Every structure is written in structure tokens, then in C-alpha cells.
């Protein structure tokens, strides 16, 4: 049978179109930097003009595959722009995988499998892979136009596949009607797909930010951006403590003996108080000087013999949302080793801000002596003293009177501070909510009778204002209160540990922390422990993070090695699996519990077993759903010309004898039976003597041909 002259099967045009569109998508998202894709398109279209195919089982196919793999790897490295789109793959990986799928699509399009109706389906499937790989970015506007086009061609391709498998001779009116109706249904489905695609795209586009956030959270930290971002805002005294939030982890402190210093980690400090709001706000602060980009390392007190022993604490910022660096008041050095530049206005007591994206780690050197004035405790100037002494003019005179009565005869600032703190702690109780009433909230709080309960912001603001009234410069500070251990040498700070307090200037000494909140209101007094689910989730996050850290430590070559070996092992494993599958097709189709030789003579069954083994040995296992004659006919049809026909001739003779014995009456005719048995034995022996011909053509399991 000469197959060289026959018309080679061609893919339906819609299938080819799908392939071309998917490759086009690859070209567009690859910024036109994958020249190989142009070649693919040309080669795909060339199947229409060149009447030759790669024969099934031919080594050429594997040669082409491996070659394309190499070229794809090489050309996928050509990337002109690094894209910051949220995508599951790096741009080069996107190109590479797209080209690999595209190459396989090409191979399948050029492959010739006799009587295989599934070839277009395989090509369609692969085009889908190419398209999805190419579209693995949410930025590219080209996708908007390509996606409906691709879906359309996909549906048309599926339709032509369906038509192809239709039985050719059927022309009955009923089936024609069915075709018309199903054609209408298909047209409806196309419209529906286009519509839903459009709607889906619009919806997706609208919530793209959320989806990207969600993806980021899944990969990185779950974060309440809103909550943590409040920490960088101006505090405004309200009915409830706005900063006290969820158990989301914000900071992790690692150092000798955990964290032993001042538990108040300050983020921002404020000096002006107006109508329940502390300032200056972020915008005003941006105009304050100096506010330049500084080096990674802040001015240090290193070399200052007064500092003495310091504890070095590593702080890892886990949550996003606010750009602040948190440190205790007496910190002598802040070192953002791998973070980016920081912005800092030291005259205003912070805040230290960095645009670095968490998680990042910075180092704090904290003197063991809490009285050391660190880098955040800048010297008092007449100008700043004015700001720290500022009391609103509208403030009720009774507050000043109250302040004087609290301080009484204390002269030293330290005593004044102690008196004020003692007064606030004893006269008021802690409560997360307060109804401050109309007017200035602090005044209402201080002058209330009976005394109101309030949260830490009120205590901090009251302490600051009362102290200012009696001549002690103070400022209002927000930050976190460290108290929760997390394994050896580690402390954890959660959003619910947010706190507010005051800092006062003591002449001749410097800044001191003034926390006037009663003990039951401090963050370390936590009524509810961390939920188990939360703890579990944190462990998962940490595991993720450690993998990310490990990956981050890898060199690019190492990553290439890992990705490459994973890809290769997947490809090799898949190939081996497919090979095994194909080897086993004869066995795989066996119906469990079914005996093909039921009722057959034992000697015959033994012969049949030997015969089937021979077929397997010659690389032609017989599928269970066909007769040997059919199987052999298709083997003979697809055998190449140079393949020896001896095996087939022997097998034919064996089968004709066997069938007479099995289904006919040969075995009853004693003499003939003996002769036939001998002949069958002889034929099998001859077959077994033949060399195994594993390179033979394997007939595909396709439409059943009637044995001639």
C-alpha cells in the first residue's frame, strides 16, 4: 500500500486559525521578542501547501521536538522589557512555555497518524495551552481583542472536529434536521460565549486591583492594609480606639533574650493638638525640613562611651500598609541593611519612613541603659520647645486649674510627670469605648464627673496636655507595645498591640516615656488569646516565607538549574509514562473479569496466549476490542514496504487454523485436529524465531474496519 501519493490529512481551517491566534497572543505579550513564533505561524500554515507529513513513530518527530525545545529556550531569553504585571510566570518563562506548547502543536499538526480523527482536537488543545500561557498577564490590552477571537475560532474548530467524526454516509432527514438545530444551538453558544467573555472581562478588569491584592496576599502576607495604614495617619480622638485591630502580625523582633528593652516601639510623634486631633498630618509633614532621602544608616551614637552595652535586635516588618520604621525611644542605631532609602525629619521626632516593601528586616541597637538618649531623642531647641508647649487657646481654664491642682507643690519635672500619671491612672478607668460628648474630647474627659472611662489615646492626650499646662514639654506618640513572646529570643507584635502614649522632656536629662494608661488598658493585658486558626495560618505564612527567603537567596544560575531540571524531568517522566501507556494498550483495554478464551479448549487457549505474546513482542499488541484478523489487516496496511511480511504471513496462517479450531469443528475431526495442532505449534515456533520488530508501525485504535 503506497501512502506516499495519497492526500495527506489537513487540519480544519478553524483549528489552524486557533493555533495562529494563540501564537499571535504569544507574540503580543512577548513584546514581539519571540521571533520563533513567526516561524511557527508560517510552519502551521504550510501544512496546507505541503503534502508531506512526519510519519508516526518516525525519529524525525523527536528530533524536531528536541530541536524546537532548545531553540525555544534560547529565544525565550530575548526579552526587551521587564514587565511588572502580576503574572504567574516571569516574562521569559511565559515565552518559553508558550514556545514549548507551540512547538508541540506544530509537531502534532505535521504528524501523520492513519485514521486518527483526534489530530485536530490535540492541536486545538495545545493551542489553548499556548493561549493561556500568553495571556498569563492582566495588563495587556491586546488580550481584550484576541480572547473573543480565539474563543470563536476554538468553537468553530470544535465544530469542524465534530463534523469530521460524523458518519459520512448518513443523509437521513432526521439527522439533517438535528444538524440544523444543533448548528443553531452552536451559534447560540458562540454568542453566549462572546457575551459572557465580554462580561467576564469587564468584571475582571474592574476588580483587577482586588484580584492582584488577593494574589499578593496569597503569596505573601495576609494584611489588613487599611488597619495598618491608620498607624501612619493623624490620630483623632474618637469614640473607640481606631488603631486597636486584628491579630495580624506586624513586626517580629529577634535578638538576644527576645526583646528586653522599653516595650514602647514608637512610630510617629505629634506636637500640635486641635479639637481632638494631633498634628502635623502626613501632608504638612512632607513640607517640613529637613526631609531628604538619607542613607540607610541613621546618625549613630556609636563611639559614645555613655551608651555602653547595647542589645542588637532584628526587626522584621511583616505587614504592609504603612511605611514607618518602629523603634524604641532610646535606640542608638537603626540599620536598614537591605531596605531602600529612608526619609526622616529628626527635629520632629520621626517618623522614619521607607518605601521598601515588606517583608524586610532592619536592625536596632538598643542600649541596655534605658536612660540613654537615643537618636530619636533629639535635643530641644527654643523653636521646638514652643511647639511642645503649645496648648490650644480654646482649652477650658478649668483644665489648667486641674493640672495645677494635680501637680500641687511638685517642682521637678519628674515629680510633675509622676503626679499626672498617678492622677490619670487612679481617677479614670480603661475602656475601649467612650462617649466624649460635644466639644473638646480631652477637656470633656478630664472634667467629667463622675470620671469617664476611656482608651489609651485619651490617657496619652490628657497626660500631654496636662503636662504642657504645668510647663513640661510633651509630645503625643503612637506605636506598638511589645509583650508577646514567639518562641526563644523572639517577640511578635500584632496590630492589636497598637498603643498611644506621651513623651515628656525632662530638663537636664532628655526625653522620657510617659504612659498614663492604666494597666488593664495596655496591650499586654489581652483578654483573648490568639485563635488556633490564626496561629495555624501564621505557621503556613512562615513556611511560605521561608521558602521565599530560600529562593531569594538563590543565585540566578541555581534557579535556572532547578527550573531546567524540573522541566526536563517532567518532560522525560511524561514521555516515559506515555511510552508505557502505549506499550500497554493491548493490556490496558482488558475488561476485568472477562475471559476471551472462555469455553475454549485448554491447548488452544495456551496456543492463543503464545500467539498474543508474539504480537506483543513484535510491537503489535492486539487490542481486546478487535479480532485478530482486523488487527492484522491494519498492521499489514500500515506496515512500511521494507518491513518483512513474514510475521504477518505466519500470523495469518495461524489465525485461520486457530479460528477453525476455536469456532469451527476442526477439533472434532481427530486426524485433522492433530495435524492442525502440530501446524499451529510449528507456526508459532517460526514466529518466535523471528527477530522482534519493535520499530513497526502501530495501528491506531480508530474506526473499525471490516475484515475483508
Amino acid at each position, binding site marked *: 500500500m503506497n501512502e506516499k501519493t495519497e492526500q495527506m490529512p489537513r487540519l480544519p481551517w478553524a483549528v489552524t486559525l486557533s493555533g495562529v491566534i494563540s501564537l499571535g497572543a504569544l507574540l503580543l505579550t512577548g513584546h514581539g521578542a519571540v521571533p520563533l513564533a513567526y516561524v511557527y505561524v508560517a510552519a502551521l500554515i504550510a501544512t496546507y501547501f505541503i503534502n508531506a507529513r512526519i510519519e508516526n513513530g518516525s525519529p524525525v518527530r523527536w528530533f524536531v521536538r528536541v530541536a524546537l525545545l532548545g531553540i525555544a529556550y534560547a529565544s525565550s531569553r530575548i526579552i526587551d522589557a521587564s514587565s511588572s504585571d502580576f503574572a504567574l510566570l516571569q516574562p521569559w518563562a511565559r515565552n518559553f512555555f508558550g514556545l514549548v506548547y507551540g512547538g508541540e502543536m506544530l509537531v502534532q499538526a505535521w504528524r501523520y497518524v492513519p485514521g486518527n480523527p483526534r489530530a485536530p482536537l490535540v492541536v486545538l488543545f495545545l493551542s489553548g495551552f499556548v493561549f493561556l500561557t500568553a495571556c498569563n498577564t492582566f495588563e495587556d490590552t491586546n488580550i481584550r481583542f484576541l480572547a473573543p477571537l480565539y474563543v470563536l475560532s476554538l468553537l468553530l474548530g470544535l465544530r469542524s472536529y465534530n463534523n469530521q467524526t460524523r458518519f459520512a454516509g448518513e443523509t437521513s432527514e432526521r439527522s439533517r434536521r438535528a444538524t440544523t438545530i444543533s448548528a443553531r444551538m452552536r451559534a447560540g453558544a458562540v454568542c453566549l460565549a462572546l457575551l459572557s467573555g465580554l462580561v467576564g472581562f469587564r468584571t475582571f478588569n474592574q476588580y483587577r486591583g482586588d484580584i492582584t491584592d488577593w494574589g499578593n496576599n496569597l503569596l505573601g502576607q495576609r494584611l489588613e492594609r487599611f488597619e495598618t495604614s491608620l498607624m501612619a495617619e493623624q490620630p483623632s480622638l474618637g469614640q473607640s480606639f481606631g488603631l486597636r485591630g486584628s491579630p495580624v502580625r506586624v513586626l517580629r523582633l529577634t535578638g538576644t533574650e527576645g526583646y528586653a528593652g522599653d516595650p514602647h516601639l514608637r512610630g510617629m510623634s505629634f506636637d500640635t493638638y486641635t479639637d481632638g486631633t494631633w498634628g502635623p498630618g502626613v501632608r504638612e509633614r512632607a513640607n517640613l525640613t529637613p526631609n531628604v532621602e538619607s542613607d540607610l544608616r541613621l546618625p549613630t551614637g556609636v563611639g559614645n562611651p555613655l551608651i555602653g552595652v547595647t542589645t542588637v535586635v532584628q526587626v522584621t516588618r511583616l505587614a504592609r500598609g504603612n511605611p514607618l520604621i518602629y523603634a524604641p525611644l532610646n535606640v542608638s542605631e537603626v540599620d536598614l541593611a537591605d531596605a531602600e532609602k529612608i526619609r526622616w525629619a529628626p527635629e520632629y521626632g520621626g517618623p522614619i519612613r521607607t518605601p521598601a516593601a515588606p517583608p524586610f528586616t532592619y536592625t536596632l541597637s538598643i542600649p541596655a541603659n534605658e536612660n540613654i538618649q537615643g537618636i530619636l531623642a533629639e535635643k530641644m531647641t527654643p523653636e521646638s520647645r514652643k511647639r511642645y508647649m503649645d496648648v490650644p487657646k480654646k482649652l477650658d481654664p478649668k483644665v489648667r486649674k486641674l493640672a495645677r491642682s494635680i501637680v500641687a507643690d511638685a517642682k521637678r519635672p519628674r515629680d510633675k510627670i509622676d503626679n499626672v500619671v498617678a492622677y490619670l491612672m487612679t481617677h479614670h478607668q480603661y475602656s475601649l469605648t467612650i462617649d466624649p460628648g460635644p466639644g473638646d474630647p480631652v477637656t470633656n474627659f478630664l472634667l467629667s464627673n463622675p470620671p469617664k472611662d476611656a482608651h489609651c489615646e485619651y490617657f496619652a492626650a490628657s497626660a500631654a496636655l496636662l503636662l504642657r499646662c504645668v510647663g513640661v514639654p510633651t509630645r503625643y506618640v503612637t506605636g506598638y507595645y511589645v509583650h508577646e513572646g514567639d518562641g526563644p529570643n523572639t517577640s511578635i507584635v500584632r496590630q492589636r498591640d497598637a498603643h498611644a502614649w506621651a513623651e515628656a522632656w525632662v530638663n537636664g536629662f532628655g526625653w522620657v516615656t510617659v504612659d498614663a494608661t492604666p494597666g488593664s488598658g495596655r496591650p499586654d493585658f489581652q483578654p483573648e488569646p490568639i485563635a488556633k486558626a490564626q496561629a495555624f495560618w501564621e505557621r503556613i505564612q512562615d513556611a511560605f516565607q521561608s521558602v521565599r527567603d530560600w529562593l531569594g537567596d538563590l543565585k540566578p544560575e541555581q534557579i535556572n538549574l532547578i527550573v531546567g531540571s524540573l522541566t526536563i524531568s517532567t518532560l522525560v517522566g511524561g514521555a516515559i509514562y506515555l511510552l508505557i501507556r502505549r506499550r500497554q494498550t493491548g493490556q490496558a483495554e482488558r475488561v476485568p473479569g472477562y475471559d476471551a478464551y472462555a469455553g475454549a479448549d485448554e491447548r488452544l487457549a495456551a496456543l492463543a496466549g503464545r500467539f498474543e505474546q508474539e504480537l506483543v513482542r513484535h510491537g503489535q499488541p492486539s487490542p481486546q476490542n478487535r479480532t485478530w484478523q482486523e488487527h492484522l489487516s491494519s498492521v499489514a496496511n500500515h506496515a512500511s514496504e521494507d518491513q518483512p511480511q513474514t510475521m504477518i504471513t505466519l500470523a495469518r496462517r495461524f489465525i485461520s487454523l486457530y479460528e*477453525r479450531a476455536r469456532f469451527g469443528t476442526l477439533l472434532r475431526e481427530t486426524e485433522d485436529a492433530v495435524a492442525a495442532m502440530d501446524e499451529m505449534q510449528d507456526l508459532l515456533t517460526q514466529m518466535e524465531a523471528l527477530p522482534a520488530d519493535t520499530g513497526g508501525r502501530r495501528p491506531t485504535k480508530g474506526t473499525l474496519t471490516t475484515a475483508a
Partner: protein
Amino acid sequence: MNSQFAAQVSRIETNLARVIRGKTESIRLLLTALLAAGHTLLEDVPGTGKTTLAKSLARSIDGEFRRIQFTPDLLPADITGSSFYSPKEGTFSFREGPVFANVVLADEINRTSPRTQSALLEVMSENQVTIEGRRRDLPQPFFVVATQNPSDYHGTYPLPEAQLDRFMVRITLGYPDMDHEMEILYSQNDGHPLDDLDPVLTTAEVLSMQEQIRTVRVDRAIAEYILRLIERTRADSRLRLGISPRGSLALYRMSQSRAAIEGRDFVLPDDVRALAVPVLAHRVLLDTKARYGGALPQTIIEEAMDKTPVPR
């Protein structure tokens, strides 16, 4: 099978091939049905030689041949025959209808009313006619070849399932290929070859062949294979109607017939597989969803064959 049988088969096949060109498989299938004593439904578009094939078969057998052109106004009595009064003799006498023949060609069977169609039912299944309470046996062999054109839809009455089931086999002819059509053109230049056809078999010979077919051996494994195939169609969720025991019997008998025609005295799984579609496809009824989903009876039978292991 003995050599006489083979000679008879080859005689009639050659005879038919002289008229119907390039349709050896269809001819053989028709012959298989004749020898299996089953009726045949020829289904195809007009002009493909349905009637010619049926007529040539009738002429090749030395027996009575009648043709009934089914029209909308045909009545049951027009098929079976009726009594009429003879004024001369003063008695009722029975005039036999066209079914009293060895080969009956029921042309365009779907053009008549269901009432008339079902009159043919009894005739086909029982080989007898009951008129005015009296049973009349039909001549033997009795072979109905019905033709219908599936593409016309207006003014037709599609055959009910019960009636389709009574046809042992449904044959589609299809268009001839170019070479054969060329032969047809030239062969009909001087006259229709059908006119020159001589009978090559007597009715007695046909009957004896039908008897011989029953001696063909069907191994238990083969019978089991047939039943497994049938069972699978019954379990198929896409079918509203699976295949009846009449269907399995038909496949069994047809396989015997095919084996005999091929010169074997035993049935092979190949026989069953070759016959499954023509014998079974017209007996199944797809449910609406499958029909509009584009499924075809042929495909379902082929799938059943694909999924059923073959005995060895």
C-alpha cells in the same frame, strides 16, 4: 458448506453484479438477508438503484415477483387481496393481493398510511395473511424488499419502530464511484441490463439454502459476544430503545448466513462485527438529547463494538 452452495452463491452474485455495478457489499448483504430468510429495507436517496437491485434479485430467482408501489391512497386490501362477488357463479371468490409472491418489492413504503403499513406487518412476521377470518399461507420462500427515501419528508409516514424491527437488515446503497458510474452509463446504452437477466436459482434451491444456513455452527463464545453487544445497547443511556431479542436473533441468523456465503461452516466474531451496523442500527431509538447532540445510531453501535471484548 458444500461446493454446491458456493456455486449457487456465486451464480446469483454474478447475476446481480451484472446489473448493479460496484456495490458488491450491498449485494452480498442483500443475499445474506435472503438466505437468512429475513426482509430487507433499502434506504437511500432516489436514483441509487434500490428498485433495480430488488428487481434484479427477484428476476434471478425463478419465482413469483410482485411490486407494490406504495401511495397515500393504498388500502390494506390492496396489499393482501380481497373477496369479490362473481355474478356468473353467484359466489364470493378470493383474489390474491400482490403479497402472494416469492419476492415482494414494497416501493417507497413510507409513502403510504400507517394503516396500510401495518397490514404488511403481519405478512412480514408471520408469512401468512388473514382475510375475512381465513388464514392463507404465503408461498415459500417469501422475501420482502422495501425501499424508502429518507430525504423526502413531505407526505411521508415514517415507519413505526415496531415495523422497522421486522426488517432483518437495513442497507444503504450510496452513490457509485466514478468508474462504476461510467460503466452504468455505457451498459445502459442499448437497453437496460435488467431485461437480459435470467433466473439462476429456483425457489426450491433458495429454500434448501435457507435450511443449510441453520447448520452453520455458532460457538457459545460467539453467541455470548452477540448478547454482550446487545446488552450494551440496552444499557446505553443515550438510547430510548435498546435492541430487542428479535434483534439478537437476527444478528445470530445473519452471522450464520454470512459465514455460509463466505464458505465457512462456523461463525467468526468477524461476521458479527461486520453485520452489527446493518442489522442493528435501524432498531435503536435515540433519545431526543442524543439525537440533537448529533449522535447517530451507527456510531452508538460502533461504540458498543469498541467497548466489547472480542472472544478468541
